């Protein structure tokens, strides 16, 4: 026997049926474009004369049945359902398949040649298969199932999006969010020979795992469909399935699922993505995944579920932000490595002042952090706008005061470095990502202080109040903005967070800059009161 199959894209394994053979040793020859393969196999001597597999109803994956089996088949509202029986004889001979005594099929069966028999099941059927003198019987029991009962029994317990091809939640992925990496990223992976996701547009982009639960007393054979709708409730053009099992009009994909009575089953449904059909622009697209459950063989809708999800497209801004954050972090780490020894030769009084100010900053920020955590339970992500008024303002005031007392290069960076080490040994705030975060912070602080003249010497501290406020606001504001943006970029990448653009702007504008200006204003009289501190 020969079989020719064209494998689907991304398919790693093919299941090739091998015809039943009499007992003995056999060799199957597999011819591919890569070469010829010989696959030996054995047929035991005590193999049964024939093998029966039943699809009840049709569409259900065939299940092997054995002599004497009683198979229950649910009929929704008692409607007849087609069933199919496949008989695979191992030896030639006259074959008769009968139902309730009436022959359905009869003829001469060839060894290894399967015979398919179909009929419509309306009530209980006794099926008998005879091959030569050997007879095998099984019973199909029709179970009428009222639609209301079926609807009450079935429910979508969980919808995992994204899921793996088995329908389980995809590890390491944020739920309800699909990521389409930026084109440059995909090109880079391709150029480097990396990348594990199928980028063949004919292959599924992702999967959705639908977990269906059946609380009724009967097994249910269901058709599970999934379609993606856009914000207007219309099938999203970019998510229309291509060819395989898709319905052109509704844009849905289907899978057949048998859910045992009192149990659950998971269907894995592919999601296709046509990038060319995506609307222009960047950012996230909100879509709706619509799951519908129908009884197999009928149009009646038993259950439906909706789940909003977002398709996050790689953002140029996000990529640039990440690159800037990483670059700034690396540059800052290099700056520290190159300049640390020189900074540690600052006047001893300056070093001691940095140490004590770092200590104060730790006390202030530790308390503020606890306050912010509690506030977050009330205000959620917007709590940072309130807690920043305490935390950021106090910290920046201390830093501004330090710079007014010790306006030299390296003071701000050293303050950040000592603060980090102190936070690490007291609060355990050490992390491998600190190299980037602390380095970046040191760089932004020194850059901001240098550009605004804060670290160029004491001359600016003698200027007018407005000019001092402007320098502090701009210098420290720039630093805070850079550090905040880097932090946002890193955290969204590390923790796969999703933040709306307006939220990012709000956080950068508020705690990132305006609060610094407020802190600078508050720090001026504060620092003036301290500038001539007497011993």
């Amino acid at each position: 026997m020969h079989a020719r199959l064209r494998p689907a894209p991304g398919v790693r394994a093919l299941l090739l049926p091998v015809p039943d053979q009499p007992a003995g040793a056999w060799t199957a020859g597999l011819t591919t474009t890569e070469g010829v393969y010989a696959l030996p196999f054995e047929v035991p001597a005590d193999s049964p004369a024939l093998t029966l597999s039943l699809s009840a109803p049709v569409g259900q994956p065939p299940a092997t049945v054995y002599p004497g089996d009683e198979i229950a088949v649910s009929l929704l509202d008692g409607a007849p359902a087609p069933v199919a029986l496949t008989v695979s004889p191992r030896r030639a001979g006259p074959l008769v398949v009968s139902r309730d005594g009436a022959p359905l099929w009869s003829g001469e069966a060839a060894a290894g040649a399967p015979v398919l028999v179909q009929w419509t099941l309306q009530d209980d059927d006794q099926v008998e298969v005879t091959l030569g003198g050997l007879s095998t019987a099984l019973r199909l029991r029709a179970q009428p199932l009222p639609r209301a009962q079926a609807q009450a029994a079935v429910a979508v317990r969980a919808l995992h999006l994204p899921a793996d091809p088995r329908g389980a939640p995809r590890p390491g992925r944020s739920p309800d969010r699909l990521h389409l990496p930026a084109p440059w990223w995909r090109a880079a992976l391709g150029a480097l020979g990396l990348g594990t996701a199928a980028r063949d547009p004919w292959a599924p982009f992702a999967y959705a795992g639908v977990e269906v639960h059946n609380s009724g007393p009967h097994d249910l054979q269901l058709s599970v469909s999934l379609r993606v709708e856009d914000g207007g409730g219309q099938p999203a053009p970019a998510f229309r399935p291509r060819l395989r099992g898709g319905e052109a009009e509704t844009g849905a994909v289907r899978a057949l699922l048998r859910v045992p009575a009192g149990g659950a089953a998971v269907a894995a449904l592919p999601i296709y993505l046509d990038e060319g059909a995506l609307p222009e622009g960047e950012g996230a697209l909100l879509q709706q995944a619509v799951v519908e459950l129908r009884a197999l063989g009928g149009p009646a809708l038993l259950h439906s579920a909706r789940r909003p999800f977002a398709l996050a497209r790689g953002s140029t801004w996000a990529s640039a932000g990440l690159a800037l954050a990483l670059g700034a972090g690396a540059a800052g780490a290099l700056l520290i490595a190159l300049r640390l020894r020189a900074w540690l030769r600052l006047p001893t009084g300056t070093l001691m002042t940095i140490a004590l100010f770092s200590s104060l900053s730790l006390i202030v920020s530790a308390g503020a952090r606890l306050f912010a955590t509690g506030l977050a339970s009330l205000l959620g992500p917007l709590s940072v706008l309130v807690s920043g008024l305490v935390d950021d303002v106090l910290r920046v005031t201390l830093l501004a005061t330090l710079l007014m007392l010790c306006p030299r290069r390296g003071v701000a960076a050293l303050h950040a470095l000592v603060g980090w080490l102190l936070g690490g040994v007291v609060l355990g705030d050490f992390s491998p990502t600190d190299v980037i975060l602390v380095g970046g912070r040191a760089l932004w602080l020194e850059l901001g202080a240098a550009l605004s003249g804060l670290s160029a010497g004491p001359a600016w501290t003698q200027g007018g109040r407005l000019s001092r406020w402007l320098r502090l606001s701009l210098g420290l504001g720039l630093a805070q903005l850079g550090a905040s943006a880097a932090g946002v970029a890193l955290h969204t990448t590390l923790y796969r967070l999703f933040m709306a653009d307006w939220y990012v702007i709000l956080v950068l504008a508020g705690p990132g800059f305006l609060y610094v200006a407020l802190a600078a204003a508050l720090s001026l009289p504060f620092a003036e009161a301290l500038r001539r501190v007497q011993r």
Partner: protein
Amino acid sequence: MEISGEEGALLRLVDAGYRYPSAEAPQLAGVSLSLRPGELVLLTGPTGCGKSTLLRLAAGLLSGEGGGQATGGMWLGDAPLEALGPAERARRVAFVGQEPHDQLLTATVGDELCFGPASVGAPPAAQRALIAPALTAAGLPQDAARPVVALSGGQVQRLITAAAAAAGAPLLLLDEPLAHLDPAGARALCADLRRRAEAGAAVLIVEHRLEAALPVADRVLTMVGGRLLREDRGIGPGHAVLEVWRGLGLSLPVELQLADRLGLPIEGLDAALCGAAGLPSRPEGGAEGAAHRAWDLGPQRHTHPGGGGVDLSGLRLGPGARVALLGGNGAGKSTLIGLLSGRLGPARRAGPRALEVPQDPDLSLFCPTVAEELAYGARARGAPPDPAVLAAAEALSVTALLEAAPHALSRGQRLRVAVAAALCAGPALLLLDEPTSGQDEAQVEALMAALARAAAGRPPGDPLGDGPLAVVFATHDIGVALRHADRWLVLDRGRLVYDGPPADGLAALPAALPLPPLLARCRRLGLPARAALALLEAAREGGAAQLDPLRSPEGRLPAGALAAETPPVGSRGASPARDDETDPPLSRAGGLDPRARVVLVLTAGVAALCLERPAALAALTLACAAPLASAPRPLRALGQAALLVAFLVWSTMLSQGLFYGDEPRSALFVLPVVEAPVWREGLRWGAAQALRFAAMTLAGLSLSLHTPAAALQRGLVGLGCPPALALLVATALRALPTLRDELVAVRAAQRSRGGRLARHPRAALQTLLPVVARSARRAWTLAESLRARGFDPDQPRVEREPLRLDARDALVLAACALVAGGLLAARGLYLLYTAEIWAHPATLPLLDLVRRWL
């Protein structure tokens, strides 16, 4: 002025001068002097004449730091000062500044002594060998592991002196070392310095409290306007320099001044006192508000957790009283003041409104200007601020300082501002704890006179409140108590042993309480204190008719006059340290190497980053909390840890579950309602985040609780951190408890003057202001102490006890490396897999493991 004895001089200055960067005129000019081994030289002069500048210049502390300009020639021994590096300079000169506690660089006595030698590269064996003799010489207990916070003020001063000289410097320069010591402590320190001089050192003390320093000095230099005016030796009654000092406003030793005025030798004062015993003295007992009812303050009882306290069955105070609280170290004076102010014990419901000016008034100055400081209390009681401000400023002579920043003032001015601010709050009872500490005589007299005026009475409608003001002040200075109080309360071990007029209280004073020399004479002669008062009055105001009999050598001595008592070498103590404030000694017994401890915390951080499952993070949190079980108060520590974790988990779960809902957008700032939908994944994520933060925090707290700052410093250095950076971290770490206590003290001061505390950023800044000011001062003092002891950021220190890894440490380090490396590798592989970058089939089982368990 001739320079005596240049040969073999340890310090030689020739025409030295110095100008500060922002000054128009030099602070010092044309100073020439030399010091030889075996000499103890006293340098005195009025405030601001350049004494401290001269000392710092000679110690090499002004070069390279302040940017000023030094002129002239300076030699330490045979080497020019500017040619010496930090280590060599530390071997030649030791410098001790004014604030002893702020000069402590370490946590234990042994470490403090060895800091200098370690900085100059002394071998570990030599460092260990110097400890015992140094402690003996300084009169300190032989306990190198003793925490420095457990030492009294006098002990700290002696320790600092010993530590400064530990690098072997034969030249000691001390700047007002007696400023914060009681008379006994001052005498003890002077005796110590005398011993050092006799052992071959050269000692130069800057001091204007001459009482204790003059007797031990070989010669005295007087400085005025940045120049050395004169040099004197053998100063006694009738010496010409006494008149010069009077003209400069210096406070002369009482006996010397008295003897000089009477034209007697010092020894003749016994007879003069006997003669003065019959003279009338000023009326005693000021009006304790006879027209006002006395306040019955009831029993005053308080017991400190570590023992000690106060137990008074009752106390009555009258409005207008000026009461001195006296007693030895630990008698309960500060505790009683705390009870009367309400700081300690249950809140007082009845009685006058009391306000305390703490021993360190800096922590009660939290406004940007003096005027605002004074107005704070007035506003709080609803009084118009301006009249109150002017009245208080006039009373305390700070009118000219109203627009100044409080922390830009001198110490004496700050104290007056603090008292004025307290007066503006309108108390009926003003409590002062050691108001004379660190003040010169003129400042003390000015302050006490101002208080006397305030206590005399406030007429109705007075901006500072109605009625007389009662003043209670705790002091060690018997002379001040004698001159400025009309009632003494003498405490001994928490009990009241005397309550009455000052003059009769002398006999009631505990024997351990040090007396000024004149009063000590009175007690030795069995005379009442009024004899000393009368003699002083007569010497100050009396004519020849009064003084001649006193000058007569036939003045009667009472029969059986006691032999001269040697006052016990006691010293005023700092408040006993709380147990949880002392650093554990740097001991390896039963402990991991500090490097291993730090690496453990780093590993916890790596693990927290790599783990995502709440169960795994919870296990990590438990592991990080486990060391708290061996903390000083384990139940309390574990309880606080549990509360922290519970709070973090609850609030983070709530914020993640409610506000990051099904909608993938952020937003939703509505308050949670009962039926609000909850995002389960958010709950899980929030729990993970909270546990991550909790694990890291507990790891850090465990490290800092169990590891002294000195050990952490060495651990960081051992892990590759630059020594100077590690020193900064250790300094910051040691400052944490002090800063925390200072913040609490400031809030207490705000509360006592203002009632309700404001809760906004400006109020928070007000709380920070005095703490930051103290920190700035402390930083300068620390810096001087560091440089004086040879600190060089480019030179590695030689530690007294070098760190050594034992088998357990090596095992821990290896395990940490394995765990951290493994977690990072696994996480990295998992990240590559989930990001669809790369996955090797061979790693799939590992990835599955990561997914299931981590």
